[in-house]
């Protein structure tokens, strides 16, 4: 699968250093991930005169971490010598968990958070209603068992839900598909 970011292009002329700084900034609520791993870093533009424009997109409309993310990006780039840092936020296209990198998925699992599966494809017509238990199967990030069940579709942050493993009896979090 090719994410929009994968198509978006790598650091080009004069951009790589700012990109490398920005991409390494950690997400405040999922600190095992960089903003790049999470897929919310949408662009880094360096003009050559010490100024840089970074574009990020929120995971959820009400994500309370966005202000902290903007501040962290700004601080990191200033610390790296960029005098003029502008952090822009865009809403469209809306973030999807499909933009979390493979590396990000591995880091989530390493930290005991089950990574998301593929976001549901949107068919034509009304958004389908989901009644009853979720059919999706999520592997336990602790023992690896597939014998797990959803506890709640909402969790400690907007982007996660709660699961439990029937094999090792441990609860765990899962980044829910969006």
């Amino acid at each position, binding site marked *: 699968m090719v994410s929009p970011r994968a198509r978006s292009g790598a650091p080009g002329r004069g951009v790589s250093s700012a990109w490398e700084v920005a991409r*390494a900034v950690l997400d405040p609520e999922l600190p095992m991930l960089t903003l790049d791993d999470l897929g919310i870093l949408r662009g880094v533009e360096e003009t050559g005169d010490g100024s840089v424009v970074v574009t990020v997109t929120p995971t959820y409309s009400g994500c309370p971490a966005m202000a902290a993310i903007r501040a962290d990006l700004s601080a990191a780039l200033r610390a790296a010598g960029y005098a003029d840092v502008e952090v822009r936020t865009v809403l469209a296209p809306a973030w999807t968990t499909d933009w979390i990198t493979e590396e990000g998925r591995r880091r989530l699992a390493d930290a005991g958070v089950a990574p998301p599966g593929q976001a549901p494809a949107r068919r034509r017509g009304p958004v389908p209603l989901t009644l009853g238990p979720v059919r999706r199967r999520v592997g336990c990030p602790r023992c690896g068992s597939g014998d797990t069940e959803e506890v709640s579709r909402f969790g400690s942050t907007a982007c996660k839900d709660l699961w439990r493993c029937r094999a090792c009896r441990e609860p765990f979090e899962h980044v829910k598909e969006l």
Partner: protein
Amino acid sequence: MSSEASATPDPRGSATPDPREPSAPDVRVPSASDVRVPSSADVRAPSSAGVHEPFPGDPREPSLADAYEAINDADDPRWAYGTGFTDPLAGVDTRLPGGVDAGDLSAYCLMLGDDALVMSHRLQEWCTHAPELEEEVALANIALDLLGQARLLLSRAGAADGSGRDEDAMAFLRGPEEFRNVRLAEAENGDFGQEMARLLVFATWRLALLDRLASSRDPVLAAVAAKGVKEVAYHRDYAAGWVVRLGDGTPYSRERVTEGLAAVWPDVAELFVPHEVEARLARAGAGVDPATLREEFDDVIGQVLTAATLTRPSTTVAGSGPGRGRDGDHTPALSRLLDELQSVARAHQGATW
């Protein structure tokens, strides 16, 4: 804590994931330097402009970037009244699509924003009152999503009407007669069964609305809606699941949700009566005529009630009286809600810290 599972990325899209074979535990702990090393799997092709262009070909992106960035302008890491988090006037792109009246667009953003703000507040009132911790967390999450939608819409309203009012002024300094939310959102909380009935109605209606609004000719409305669709789909599934669980549960749970549905049903009809602003914006391709949502609403509610072994309430019950929220005609419940919501901001206008 770590395991072999962690080293095996989830096979995304597989219809038959993956009872993973446990094997030797991987005790590796990621270090800070680890996290900063670029992954070889994450190689990008060079961009000719030397710029990461996330959405090539999206003609809306420049104005969206300006408008949304300005709406969310701030380097301040905290978002709270008085912290100077907002500055909606700074560079907001208030250009509108041709044929769209600025006053109409502002009024429309207020309607949809007030729906979200007031419903969010009612859900927030469940904090420390929900029957279980998981439901507490769920209701707070839903409230947060709606609050996020409200912030964007209220900021857009203040920018579009030229008044220069920011989201705080919109939320905290308007009187109840200036609110444009539907009455369904403002009604006092009942028990959990009634809240699930209201949330089912609200989310089903709003999801159908946002889904259509995602193709609005106004790029900011379209973007807010497209994002909201994903969020409200979760809200609707959550409420639908509870209505089924309660309706097809014990005699007592069935009684609670039946009475809950009956309590909220008088406010349903209002959801589908177009206000003149909604009708004009629908004709201009920027808004949604709520009358067009009824069929989808009835279909979804029918599916839920069937699964819950419940029947649709009678609509002959008297509602909350004449008048409509979209005209600023509200019940006393909204005044009481705003008394609490606005008390700090009104007591300390212009306060900073």
